[in-house]
């Protein structure tokens, strides 16, 4: 995960953080007027942005999504719950680029331009998992603070994120990816391999993130609907191990291989030219 810190060395990545955040916030704000759970959940077509900027801009997209969501909160819903929103949206954009590399072989075309059935299936799976993780984190936080009922927030965030991401994401990526690549703004082009952590037991990391994301939501739903754990600290402690699994898995997924693969591809293109 060292790329989430080393990326700040690159002016282009800093600018991409700011622009991603501004786009996300600018699309979020007009929909502040249509809350589902006021102060926590709105109808958010902007929720497709984290998936897109995560895959295109990597760690800059993750920071941009987190900051963009916080700025969106500045325009009407800033509260202690915004801390959970910051972290949840960070992972909503972080996991797509972290997980993407785990599903493609080194010699395989892994550009997230949605030009094959496999890429579409992988994208949908990742978008759903990232939505589960984001929802798990935010619901866990608001459960600890006891400001919203746990189960409705959990379900609404999953549905809101996943629907927007799954329906709009492939279209946006198909249209936007070629332009971003032509402008040299892909995170894999801007960052150097040594600035990105290498994967360690990538498949295990992938499994851990899935177990953590699905486990947090399923366990939360069971505890929340049956009342098996007391609200607040009870649910908070019960979900914590799953969220730790997600973080550990994210560390193991790496990302250096994606940067190296692009470098190799560009070198091959140059030699052909």
């Amino acid at each position, binding site marked *: 995960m060292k790329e989430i810190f080393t990326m*700040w*060395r690159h*002016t*282009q990545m*800093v*600018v*991409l*953080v*700011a*622009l991603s*955040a*501004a*786009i996300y*916030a*600018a*699309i979020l*704000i*007009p*929909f*502040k*007027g*249509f*809350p589902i*759970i*006021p*102060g926590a959940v709105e*109808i958010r*077509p902007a929720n497709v*942005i984290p998936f*897109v900027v995560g895959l295109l801009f990597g760690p800059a997209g993750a*920071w*941009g999504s987190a*900051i*963009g969501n*916080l*700025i969106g*909160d*500045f325009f*009407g819903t*800033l*509260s*202690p719950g915004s801390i959970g929103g910051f972290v949840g949206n960070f992972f909503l954009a972080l996991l797509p680029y972290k997980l993407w590399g785990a599903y493609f072989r080194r010699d395989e075309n892994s550009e997230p331009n949605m030009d094959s059935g496999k890429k579409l299936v992988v994208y949908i799976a990742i978008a759903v998992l990232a939505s589960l993780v984001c929802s798990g984190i935010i619901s866990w936080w608001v459960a600890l*603070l*006891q*400001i*919203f*009922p746990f*189960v*409705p927030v959990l379900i609404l965030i999953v549905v809101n994120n996943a629907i927007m991401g799954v329906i*709009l994401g492939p*279209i*946006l990526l198909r*249209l*936007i990816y070629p*332009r971003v690549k032509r*402008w040299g*703004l892909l995170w894999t082009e801007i960052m150097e391999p040594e600035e990105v952590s290498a994967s360690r037991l990538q498949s295990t990391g992938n499994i851990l993130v899935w177990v953590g994301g699905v486990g947090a939501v399923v366990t939360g739903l069971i505890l929340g609907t049956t009342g098996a754990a*007391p*609200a*607040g600290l009870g649910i908070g402690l019960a979900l914590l191990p799953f969220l730790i699994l997600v973080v550990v898995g994210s560390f193991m997924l790496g990302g250096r291989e994606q940067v190296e693969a692009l470098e190799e591809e560009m070198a091959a293109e140059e030699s052909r030219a």
Partner: protein
Amino acid sequence: MDPSLYLDRDTWVHRLDPRTKMFLLIGAFVLAFIFLDPLYELVVLALVLIFGYMAKSLENLRRIWFILLAVGLLTLVLWSLVGGGRTPLFLFVELESVLYGLSIALRIDTTIIAGVIFLSTTRNEEVAIGLVKLGIPYRFAFAVTTALRLVPTIASTGFTISQAQRSRGLDLDSGNILQRTRKYVPLLVPVFVTTIRSTNVFSMALESKGFGAGGKRTFYLRTALGGRDVVVLVVFVVLLAASVALRVAGYGTLEGFSG
């Protein structure tokens, strides 16, 4: 459309150091979370509103009245239905769950109003300096404040694009919320592309002006903690301590509620 909330007023709140205002904001969040009795929450809300009145910032609440009202009503309904208590009120709803819902609604409204007052009295540049002086890395603070500054520009770009699409026959004003949401989809691509296209020029402009050149940065806008800040901080810390002491002594709780 101008989403900026800053109001250029000459009040003592505006003149406070941004770090003091950040502390007051976090303190207001803490204060709102100390009590569970709706009456105590009302007192906290009243204190925040008085502060907002002194800061001449309450006019911004008109822009978010719908959210505040919706928070009040829906949070009350949600907790009344989901929560439990000891005293039956009507059907399966208990008195304690209604009171808890009321308390949480007031709590969320209070924190939202505190956030609006902070943004009404603090410029973007002050937010950046405040973050840097609190030890946040400059590049992160720069990204946050640049994004804040760009939001109106991008929103304006989106508005221009929507006008262009309307002139071609796109109807953004009819249909229910979901139908209208879908109609905004064709606007996302041009907004995204128009904004991201400027990345390289923006980066070169920054680097040509020494961004990332290293060394300790100085700021055109200078802020410092003064006597007024110290007085405000001391008064607020005393208020917080008194609130915690009251809660520890058993005041401001809500008996009988079960989540």
